[in-house]
Every structure is written in C-alpha cells, then in structure tokens.
C-alpha cells in the first residue's frame, strides 16, 4: 500500500504545507509552552510578593490549575486552530489541486490502483500530522516536567490533551480528503470541507431561528425530545470540539469543573468514538468514491451527476434558512409582530437566488481547474 514512488510524488506536491505543519507544531507547542511557563513564573512571584496565597496548599492548587487547565488547553487550542487550517489545505493540495492540472492524469497512468493512491495520500498526511504532533507534544511536556513546575503535572490530563486533539486533527484531515473525492477542484474541496465541518453548529443556529420565527422558541427545545436529541447529536458531531474546544469537553465530563480539585477531574475516552467514526467513514467512502470518480468532470463542483440534485436542494434550503434568519434580525423593533413576514421574505428571496446560483455553479466548469 505504501509505495515509495507515490510517497515521493505526493511529497513533491505538498512539501511546503507538510513542513509548515511541522514548523507550527515546533513553534506552537514547545516554544509557546516555554513562554507561558515564564509568564506563570512571573505571576507566581508577583502573587507571592502580594501575599495572595493563604498557604502552600492553595499555591499548589493554583499552579496545578494554571498548568493543567489553562496553559495546556490554551496552547493546544491555539495550535490546533492553525493546524486545522493547514490540514484542510493539505487535503486540498493532495487531491483537489491534482484535479486542476494534468497531475491527476499522470497519477492514474501509474501502475498503482486508485485505492493505493488514495490510501497513500492519507497515510502520508496522517504520518506527518501524528509524528510532528506527538514529538512536539512530548517536547512541550518535557519542558514542563523538567521545570520547577514538574510536580504539578497530571499525567491523565496530559494524555487527554494529547490523544483527543490528535484524533480530532486526523478526523479533520480524513474528512477533508474525503470531500476531495466528491468535488472537482481545490477551491470547491476546501469550501465544502469547511462548510461541512461547521455544519453541525450552523444547522443548529439556522433551525433554532426557523423554529423561533415559527413561534416554537429555541428556549423550549428542552421540552421537545427529538429536538433535544438532535441538538445533542449535532453538538457531539462538531469535530472542532475534539481539538479546539477542549475545555467544553472537560465540562462534559465534569459538571462542576471549576469547583473540583484539578486532580479529581474525570476523563472519559468513549467520546473518541465520534472522531474515530469520522475517520472510518470518510476513509471507507473516500476509497470507494476515489475509485469510481470520473476525472473527466474535474473542474466541476461535483464529480458525480447523481449527487448534483442532493447538493442543489441542500444548498438552496440552507441558504434560504440563512436568508430568513438574517432578514428577521433586521426587523424594525416597532414591527416585531410581523417578523415572520420578514423571515419568509428572506427565506423565499434567498432561496430563489440560490436556486439560480446553484444551477449555474453545478453546471459550470471552472476554467482555472479545467483540464
């Protein structure tokens, strides 16, 4: 499956982004940790001088909390926002960019199956993400461990901060790679990947506005079992929760997050099943669609004719909901009784507009990516 020639070809194509990922991991994990530790050092000295600590136990708890629930998640979140962007770009260059020049033709003439080609791209990207992330995470941990704050480290939390973001990032990569097998160019791939990555939160917002406008208030969602279930499912399928919003995840595990001693925090690994599910599904569907993909449609928004109506309906409905939501926000205060009319004016107007835009978009072949 792992063929040197495919590795060499993909490396040539993506080396700038791959090295950028390595560099981001080096700069954002160990270096940022060192800077944050220095700031903590200054803060502790200042607090000591000001007599802010009642006793040594309080000092120990404050430092432990700073390291484990502030420095680590903050460093992770900042790193992972930038890494997520780079990873989506990487997936775009791996597959989408190939469709924009003759590289796709060249790749498919080589003596390798399409499954081999796709899995090789996945393995190469994943290997770089995993290796650079783990090595630099360990370096960052060593910086804390060998400092005077080493005794404050809580290994189960460190492991949590390593494993969740890592699986989350791999899920983002695999998911974005999968969209490359459906779309016909790098811009389409990146756009659709981002839209579907934020879709779970976006659709909650759009649906809540729709229900609000139709008198079912969002605040009553809790009384509607199916809406409650939907909200929960969508919240859990939001992939950025597993690598950026780590504090939310800790809150899910521990309701009294701020009151309890940091070392008593509970960590569960069952939630990993969601990003792992993303990886397995995207990989399975990605291989299948990459094998079936008709590259004569490269440059078009969607490679498969049969999927075009699905995307058209989805696009029109989502933009109609967005249009309704936005126009409702502009309802003058003295006309708040009529906000449903504003909502439907926005809904129908934007829906119609995007019906025509989607027809054009789905049928056109971008010259920039034509073959």
């Amino acid at each position, binding site marked *: 499956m792992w*063929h*040197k*020639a495919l590795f*060499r*070809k993909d490396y*040539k194509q993506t080396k700038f982004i791959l090295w950028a990922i390595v560099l981001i991991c080096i700069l954002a994990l160990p270096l940022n940790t060192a800077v944050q530790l220095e700031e903590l050092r200054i803060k502790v000295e200042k607090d000591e001088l000001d007599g802010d600590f009642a006793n040594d136990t309080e000092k120990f708890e404050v430092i432990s909390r700073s390291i484990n629930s502030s420095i680590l998640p903050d460093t992770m979140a900042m790193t992972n926002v930038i890494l997520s962007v780079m990873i989506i770009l990487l997936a775009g260059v791996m597959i989408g960019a190939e469709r924009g*020049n*003759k*590289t*796709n*033709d*060249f*790749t*498919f*003439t*080589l*003596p*390798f*199956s399409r499954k*081999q080609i796709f899995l090789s791209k996945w393995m190469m990207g994943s290997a770089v993400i995993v290796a650079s992330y783990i090595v630099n995470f360990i370096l960052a941990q060593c910086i804390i461990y060998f400092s005077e704050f080493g005794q404050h480290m809580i290994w189960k939390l460190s492991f949590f901060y390593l494993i969740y973001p890592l699986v989350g990032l791999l899920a983002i990569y695999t998911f974005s790679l999968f969209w490359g097998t459906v779309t016909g160019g790098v811009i389409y791939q990146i756009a659709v990947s981002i839209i579907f990555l934020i879709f779970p939160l976006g659709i909650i917002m759009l649906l809540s506005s729709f229900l609000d406008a139709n008198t079912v208030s969002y605040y009553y969602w809790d009384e509607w079992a199916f809406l409650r279930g939907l909200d929960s499912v969508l919240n859990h399928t939001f992939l950025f929760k597993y690598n950026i919003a780590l504090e939310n995840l800790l809150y899910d595990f521990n309701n009294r997050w701020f009151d309890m001693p940091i070392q008593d925090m509970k960590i569960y690994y069952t939630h990993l099943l969601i990003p792992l599910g993303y990886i397995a599904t995207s990989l399975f569907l990605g291989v299948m669609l990459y094998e*079936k*993909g*008709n*590259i*004569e449609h490269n440059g078009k928004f969607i490679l498969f*004719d049969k999927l075009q109506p699905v995307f058209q309906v989805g696009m029109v409905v989502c933009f109609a909901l967005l249009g309704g939501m936005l126009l409702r926000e502009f309802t003058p205060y003295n006309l708040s009784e009529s906000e449903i009319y504003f909502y439907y004016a926005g809904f129908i107007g934007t829906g119609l507009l995007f019906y025509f835009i989607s027809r054009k978009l789905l049928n056109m072949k971008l010259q920039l990516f034509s073959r």
Partner: protein
Amino acid sequence: MLEVQKLTKTIHNKSVFEDISFSIEPGQIIGLVGRNGAGKTTLLKSMVGIFNPQSGDVKFEGVSVYDNPSIKKHIVFVPDSPEALKSYTVKEIVKLYNDIYPQFDERYFYELLQRFSLSTNVKIGNYSKGMKALFALVLAFSTKAKLIILDEPTDGLDVIVKKKIIQYIVEEVAEKQTSILVSSHRLDEIEFIADKVLMMKQGKLDSQTELMDMKSHYKKVQVVFKKELPPSLQNANGIDVLNQTGRVYTLLLSGKLEKANEMIQSEQPLLFEELPMTLEDVFVSKLGGDGDVA
C-alpha cells in the same frame, strides 16, 4: 500483447466511443487517426486507466489493466505535453521513475539527453515546447516499457523537432521491439512510421488497415469525361470523389477494384490515369463529410 475488448465510454450519458476492439502485437506501430472530437484522446486515456470506461476491458499479456493496475509498469502513456512534470528537475524525475518502473535505464536516459542536447540541470518547465516533447519521449523509452502510447507527439512542434522525434521513434522500435500506439493528425507522419492504421469515426472504429495492404485495397485515379461525372459513377459503391476541377475528377476506388475499374471504363473516359495514393486520400474519403467537426 495488448488487447482492447469492446471498450465503451459515455460522458454525461453521451457516447464518446463504443465497442472499440483491436489488438497490438510486439514491435508494431499503430496509428490512430480520426477527426477532431472523434474520441481518440478519450480512448487512449481510457486504455491506461485515466478514465473509467463504462464497459469492456484492456488486457496486457492477458491481464486486465483495470483489475491489476500493476501491469501498467509495462505501459507508458505520453500525453501531448508533460505538464504534470513541469515542476520537477531532471534528477527528481529520475528518482521518481526509478521507483515506479523497475526496468528504468538511467544510464541510457542520460545518454539520450546528451544526444538531444537536453540540459540536465533544469526544471522541465524551463524546457521549450519541443524539448518537453522530446524529453517525454526519452523518458518513456528509458522505462523499457513494452508498449508506449503517444497522444499527438508532434503537435505544434517545428519541422526539425518533428523530424527528430519521428526518426527516434522508428529507431527505438527497430532496435527494441517496443510497440507504439500513436494518435496524430499528421497523416504523413503516421504513414511514414505506422504498420497499421485505426480510423475512428463518430466514436466507432471505422476501419483497421495494414498500410502494406492499403495499395491493394485502394486506388487513386484521375479521370476526365466528355461532360460531368456520369450518374452511374456518382453514387456507386467503392467510388469516392476526392477532388473535382472542372471536368477533371480525382477518384478513390476501394473494395473490388477490378469492378470499379470496369465501371469507369464502360463510361469511356477521355483520360484515365492512376495517381500515387496517400493515407490522407483514404482519410478524406472515409472520414470526410460535410465539414461536420464532431
């Protein structure tokens, strides 16, 4: 060696070509000709797995290239321009091809670069159009592949480069028994190098003609009658008008040449003269029409 079996391809529910079958033997050069839009490039790309055909198969030494793509290490496809490799340096390509093709002959490759005065210290994108075409050929032949598929190898090149390329292809085939499938609009070139010509018309294989046999299947004659071409000859099977200048007609006779000859003689032409025939005459006669570029 290579067998194309009932290959069919449709794009947007429109047939590009259907039911194409032919075979290539070792050391054979086959020319693929047809008008613009006849489906030549799509056929070549489908044969090497760039496009997925709707049905049919391509077997190399009995092994399907779709089920066992590893067999493609014996087949190299050379597109009209090596755009995919333009960001590579020569050294990077050598490493890549060494990994892909086990038989890649690096020493031979560098010898050929020297012979054609192609610089080794540049990126492929920096070569001129002619140099790129030559480079792609040198690269393909250095893989020692048993079959090389060329799509418009001389398209847009100057006569000097064209000559070099044609000469090089002929040399390689003579020395190494490599098989070549070449699509081109340059019928004179095809006529010069090919053993067999496949003609595509509206997505179908119109004919497969051995060039050696062409002369026994076709005859080009110039005739003059007292008036215009007699009606009995105008719609006759096996008689096609290639050209008309006044009362002088150039005809292409095909099929039963004796019978066509007799039909013309029975109309008592003032002049009946046999002319040297070219592939272009056959092409115009068979694939020409009412200017309908497909």
